[in-house]
């Protein structure tokens, strides 16, 4: 009897619950739901470096400059700027009539407050300050003009002002409500304003009618934090999520999404490039001939086509084609196992010589890639072993302290898409990501471009750096991975942002 009752109750419960679920419309008009893999914990611009902070906060805040998916730098809250005093002072004219979401006006004081805060005690607690170290102070000239006084010229500063720590925050609001409140109740000048935030669950935004630019077409923008890729894709398939943003969807799940008539996959080149860097100090990879031989020996295009499903582009230096400093005339070394064997012979490397490749253990796709690399090396007579590490151990101990094998994984890219952002720290003597190499010529080139604000001249030097690094074969360049977005077909006018800094005022839903 009880058994029957239990069963009946269970069925009824399921029916009621199912009914409740179906009754609430899965798709509400004017509302878009996004799955993001991580909750940054705070929405304060000075607190975090996480890409998934920016994929939400780019809708809430504005910077003085703006850089959209086309990676062109355009006016944001500043309408124009001029560089003075040999690049040591930048004068910004500010947009007039702009209001924060709480109604307080945006003006020169707000800009000064933002950067005083970033460079002061509040900013010191977080990771963003170091990125803006070239700023000495901000001076208010009049209500709509500010001067940035720099310690030394910073050619990347204008780009950096378009994101992260440089987002303009409201002085009065923060003074009234305090820092803690601001962390969880952000206010900016962007196209969407904050509604509610539940840690580890999601954040909700709505259209800001007083936005100074193109007003949002969506009424509501909801983000849910879902870290497990299969769960995010299930939500997408069930129609409860409209967009799954990177880094979530692994290559292997692309066919599942493409196979669903309501869904699509859109991609864009990301800033992240993958390479296996060499120990240039010890072992057989000390010899540039050996390093080149290993590059010739691996068919990188085949890896991209098979393992990565074509969602990557081959590279010749440690940057993708969106990067400032990318040289289109540089071509990756071809796959040529015969030449590889010849070079190894010339270098006196015995067949069967061992090489250890250190990688991050948590990256399943890259694990497959490296297995393919190891097999290719086997063909040219190199005995490669793969050593996976826990990511933090590899990044914070093994690489900086020079404890790697002959090759190690480097997968990196900065949102500024400026080659200096990675090259300096990988090639300059004594930097964290350069445990082995020391080359005065390289150091000199890297230092020289940092003092120049002339874009053309700087680009030339950055290209020379890329070419020089390739001549010396400091790494085996593998590929530039695409940023993969899973999207419902009811979303219109969505442009994937290469750096995941999404601003969705032009997006609408059916």
């Amino acid at each position: 009897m009880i058994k029957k009752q239990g069963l009946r109750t269970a069925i009824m419960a399921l029916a009621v619950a199912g009914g409740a679920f179906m009754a609430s419309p899965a798709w509400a008009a004017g509302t878009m739901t996004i799955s993001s893999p991580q909750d940054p914990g705070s929405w304060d611009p000075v607190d975090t470096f996480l890409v998934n902070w920016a994929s939400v906060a780019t809708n809430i805040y504005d910077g003085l400059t703006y850089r959209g998916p086309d990676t062109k730098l355009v006016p944001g809250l500043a309408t124009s700027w001029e560089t003075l005093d040999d690049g040591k002072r930048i004068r910004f004219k500010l947009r007039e009539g702009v209001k924060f979401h709480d109604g307080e006006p945006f003006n020169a004081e707000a800009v000064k407050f933002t950067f005083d805060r970033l460079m002061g005690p509040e900013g010191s607690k977080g990771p963003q300050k170091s990125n803006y170290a070239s700023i000495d102070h901000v001076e208010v000239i009049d209500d709509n003009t500010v001067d940035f006084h720099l310690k030394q010229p910073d050619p990347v500063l204008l780009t950096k002002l378009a994101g992260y720590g440089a987002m303009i925050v409201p002085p009065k609001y923060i003074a009234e409500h305090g820092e803690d409140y601001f962390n969880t109740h952000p206010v900016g000048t962007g196209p969407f304003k904050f509604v509610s935030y539940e840690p580890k669950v999601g954040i909700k935004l709505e259209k800001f009618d007083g936005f100074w630019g193109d007003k949002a077409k969506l009424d509501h923008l909801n983000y849910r934090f879902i870290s497990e890729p299969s769960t995010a894709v299930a939500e997408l398939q069930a129609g409860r999520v409209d967009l799954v943003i990177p880094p979530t969807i692994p290559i292997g799940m692309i066919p599942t999404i493409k196979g669903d008539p309501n869904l699509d996959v859109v991609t864009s080149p990301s800033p992240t490039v993958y390479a296996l860097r060499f120990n240039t100090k010890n072992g057989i990879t000390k010899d540039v001939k050996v390093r080149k031989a290993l590059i010739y020996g691996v068919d990188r295009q085949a890896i991209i086509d098979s393992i990565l499903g074509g969602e990557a582009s081959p590279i010749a230096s440690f940057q993708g084609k969106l990067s400032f400093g990318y040289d289109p005339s540089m071509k990756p070394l071809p796959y040529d196992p015969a030449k590889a064997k010849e070079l190894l012979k010339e270098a006196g490397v015995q067949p069967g010589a061992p090489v250890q490749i250190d990688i991050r253990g948590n990256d399943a796709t890259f694990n497959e890639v490296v297995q393919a690399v190891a097999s290719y090396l086997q063909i040219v007579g190199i005995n490669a072993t793969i050593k996976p590490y826990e990511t933090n151990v590899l990044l914070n101990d093994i690489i900086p302290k020079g404890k790697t094998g002959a090759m190690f994984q480097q997968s990196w890219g900065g949102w500024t898409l400026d080659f200096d952002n990675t090259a300096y720290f990988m090639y300059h003597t004594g930097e964290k990501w350069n445990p082995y190499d020391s080359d005065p010529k390289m150091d000199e080139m890297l230092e020289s471009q940092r003092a120049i604000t002339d874009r053309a001249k700087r680009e030339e030097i950055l290209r020379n750096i890329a070419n020089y690094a390739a001549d010396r074969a400091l790494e085996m360049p593998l590929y530039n991975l695409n940023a993969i977005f899973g999207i419902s077909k009811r979303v219109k006018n969505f442009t994937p942002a290469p750096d995941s800094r999404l601003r969705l005022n032009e997006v609408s839903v059916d």
Partner: protein
Amino acid sequence: MAGFLIKRFLQAVFVVFVVTITVSFAIRLTGDPALMLTQGAGSVTEADLERIREALGLNQPFLVQYFQFIKGMFTLDFGRSFLGGTPVSGLLAQALPATLSLAFASMIVSIILSIPLGIKAAVAKGKWADQIIRILSLVGLSFPNFWLATMLVLLLSITFRLLPPSGMDNFASFIMPAATMGIILTATNVRLVRTAMLETLQSQYIMVARAKGLSENVVLYKHALRNCAIPLITYFGLQFGALLGGIVVIERVFNWPGLGTLAFDAVGGRDYPVLQAVITVLSLLIVGINLLVDIAYGLIDPRIRTE
């Protein structure tokens, strides 16, 4: 009796102390949170890192950090998350009820399923029904729970669109995670109910009840079940602790905003305060339940008290 209670209580305190100090110490060996926070930043100097460590309180010796954590615990102040500075007590206040309610729901599913099935198997001992139930329970034991969860999502959320695939929004959200955990638990519980029932059914009072002409259901559910309830309740209580451990995987699959998700993210982000707090709460729960069971045993059975 007082001596027994004090002894058991001190043991429990000792266990919690060992667990928290081990976890706090071990996670500090695995990497520097300041480096984690600045990952992706280009120009990070040692001075920048030092500043961040100071802000996070990591420049102090380990024991000082640990005792501050313990001290804070007594005022329910678990410090702040390294990620964004959210107060940990707030995160716990949200995650603990989520995990407990899911654990309770799973227990209820399991009890609803395992008692009738176990009784049926005991009554039909050696017959077809018994064999089938025992084979099914063996199959259930061998399922990895994440596989079952994924299959349920595929069927009920994607194919039939009956239930939400993840999240904790309403009653419907509970069905799949609770069913997954419940089915796995049922596999062991059925065997337990069956064994306990078999023993009870051989008692003379069952024979008497049958001789009185009571219906079979009354005999089974009123007389027999009541008498084998004591060992079952004890066992279910202890199982609750183990359940909290197993729920971590299920929380991840169903994106459940509970302690498991919190711990998982904290390990990845080297968020010491959050991880310490979650482990402490979990160990307090498990130790607390064990303590209650110990005390209950002591009350019932004088031999345990004097041991």
